[in-house]
């Protein structure tokens, strides 16, 4: 019987990954250049990006150059809404809903890629067999900034290692090979890249046992729930049990 329960639990755990795997977005063909894409991208770039990054990505006025940023970086920055940049200079680029539609993003990415020589959009495969190595790589390399559950963390200097809850596999891989903002570059062998991305996807989508999740970031939400759910419920219980008898009021 215990065996059966164990097998069932195992199936659930594996099932979580299976669900995750089927969620992979179909963006595999972004490598193939569509005719006219670069030209359309150039027009969008002139209108929205050139004021900072310059006509050919050289960077003007102290804004960063993006000549060799590459496809991966442009795709990451645009899909996470970081570009166009809209903060005071020197602040961390904010994650926002993307400013451009799917086709426009492809065109812009094609144009930025044509400026110089940067990393292409990586290919990743999710593979449940890589979960355990992925956990290990994540715990050692990503958790110190993003938290063990990938729910984000604060770094010094006002920067935030963003929660990974909204990052689909390709975004994770792009972040790793381009190192946005204060994040280091993780230029790893394909297998390690796959493993890490698989584990991040597992964290995002696998059901976590134990009931309603309150963030999986430990004692802060737990303490709040202990007081404002547990202790509050018990205070109500105490009041009801204690008060009920006040009314009978016949004395002892």
């Amino acid at each position, binding site marked *: 019987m215990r065996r059966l329960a164990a097998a069932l639990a195992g199936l659930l*755990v594996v099932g979580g990954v299976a669900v995750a795997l089927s969620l992979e977005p179909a963006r595999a063909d972004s490598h193939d250049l569509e005719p006219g894409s670069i030209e359309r991208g150039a027009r969008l770039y002139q209108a929205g990006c050139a004021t900072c990054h310059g006509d050919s990505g050289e960077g003007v006025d102290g804004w960063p150059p993006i000549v060799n940023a590459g496809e991966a970086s442009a795709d990451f920055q645009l899909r996470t809404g970081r570009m166009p940049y809209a903060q005071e200079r020197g602040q961390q680029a904010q994650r926002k809903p993307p400013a451009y539609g799917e086709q426009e993003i492809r065109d812009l990415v094609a144009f930025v890629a044509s400026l110089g020589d940067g990393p292409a959009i990586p290919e990743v495969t999710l593979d449940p067999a890589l979960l*355990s190595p992925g956990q290990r790589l994540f715990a050692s390399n990503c*958790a110190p900034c993003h938290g063990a559950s990938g729910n984000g963390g*604060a770094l010094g200097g006002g920067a935030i290692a963003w929660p990974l809850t909204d990052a689909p596999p390709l975004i994770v891989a792009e972040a790793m090979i381009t190192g946005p903002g204060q994040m280091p570059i993780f230029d790893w062998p394909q297998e390690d890249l796959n493993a890490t991305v698989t584990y991040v996807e597992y964290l995002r989508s696998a059901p976590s046992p*134990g009931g309603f999740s309150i963030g999986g970031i430990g004692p802060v939400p737990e303490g709040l729930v*202990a007081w404002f759910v547990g202790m509050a419920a018990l205070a109500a219980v105490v009041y009801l049990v*204690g008060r009920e008898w006040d009314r009978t009021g016949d004395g002892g």
Partner: protein
Amino acid sequence: MFRWLDERLGLAGWARTGLRKVFPDHWSFLFGEVTLFCLVVLVLTGVFLTLFYVPDSTPVVYDGVYLPLHGQTVSAAYASTLDISFEVRAGLVMRQVHHWAALVFVAAIVVHQLRVFFTGAYRRPREINWLVGIGLLVFALAMGITGYSLPDDLLSGTGLRIIHSVIISIPFLGPWIGSLLFGGEFPGHAIISRLFVFHIMLLPALLIGLVGVHLAILWRQKHTQWRGARETESNVVGKAFWPTQVFKSTGLMMLTAAVLALMGGLIQINPVWIYGPFDPTRVSAPAQPDWYVGWLDGALRLFPPIEFTLFGITIPSPFIPGVLLPGLAFGIMTLWPFIESRVTGDNREHHLLDRPRDAPLRTAIGVAALSVFVILTLSAGNDVAAVILNVPLEATTNLLRLAVLVVPIAVGVLTYRVCVELTRREAAAPGGTRPVAVRLRRTADGGFEEVD
């Protein structure tokens, strides 16, 4: 059967007075009972957990059902925690009920203690039970801290590392205590099995023994009560233990257990499988202790990292917030009844409670101290707040530094004002003066003097 027992043990007389013991009727007296019932739940679930937990930091290869850790080398303690969570029938729910019960247990102690404090229930003759209560709080905290560390996951390991750094910051003795406790350099080979012995034998024995003393003294001294039409300093008004209080308490026990069981069944707590096994080369962020240690962690975070030399001894920076501050806080708390009676010169027996407004200075000091506690506790979550509010970490830290200096004074003054104002309005309201029983004695020269 009862007769048979009575003839041999002579319990009838004892039981008769016991069953007639009078309990006051106000709901605020029940928080102490809730605390006791949390402890009952903790013991029951804790016994279950000890059946499966392995208190051993020896490395083993994890081959259980949780795939993301499959094949990794982890401590036997961590592996057994995973097994309890994924393979032992009802193991996860027991673990979760145990953990929620622990958090709520300490919360209930604090609420109970606040009730006692703000009503002056610790005044003569109940100072001893106040001291016993402080002892209970200390042991409860020690239970929590030792228990938090047992799963040997990355989060609790980070907590242990902080505790270790605080311990070794004590001048002279620190390094020695540290290596004695941990069995060598951090993380040490012995700490898990030692914490286990503390957590399941030593501390529970002390805790439960002290609970016995606490209740025995309560039984002997009888409850305090609110001032009322019939309640005076020299009687106890309320319901008899049997039948009224027995049913009330049984119901309360069931409901307490129900609340804790619901929490354990429905709300995830401490998902150690996500944190991963402890590894001294890794850190986890954000890392917080359970809420009741949060004020100390918060103090460590707010206190500027300065080291200074005093009489040729270097005082490492964790010493002041990590050792001196809690020492001072617990010292003042322990001595409070004696400090108060010294300051007010009131050394009479009190069986009637004060309302908070009746002792404005005490209430103001209590509220101010509470606000320090709350702000320090919040400070332990400064990194989480920075992410959620999307503001720089340094900004939250500086704001909290300012708050911990200013807010206590502000709320203290405000509380004092409110208390005084409430009393004034009450006295001014027609018929609003509350009944105060005053006994007068005729003195030899024909005047009157008050006696209590």
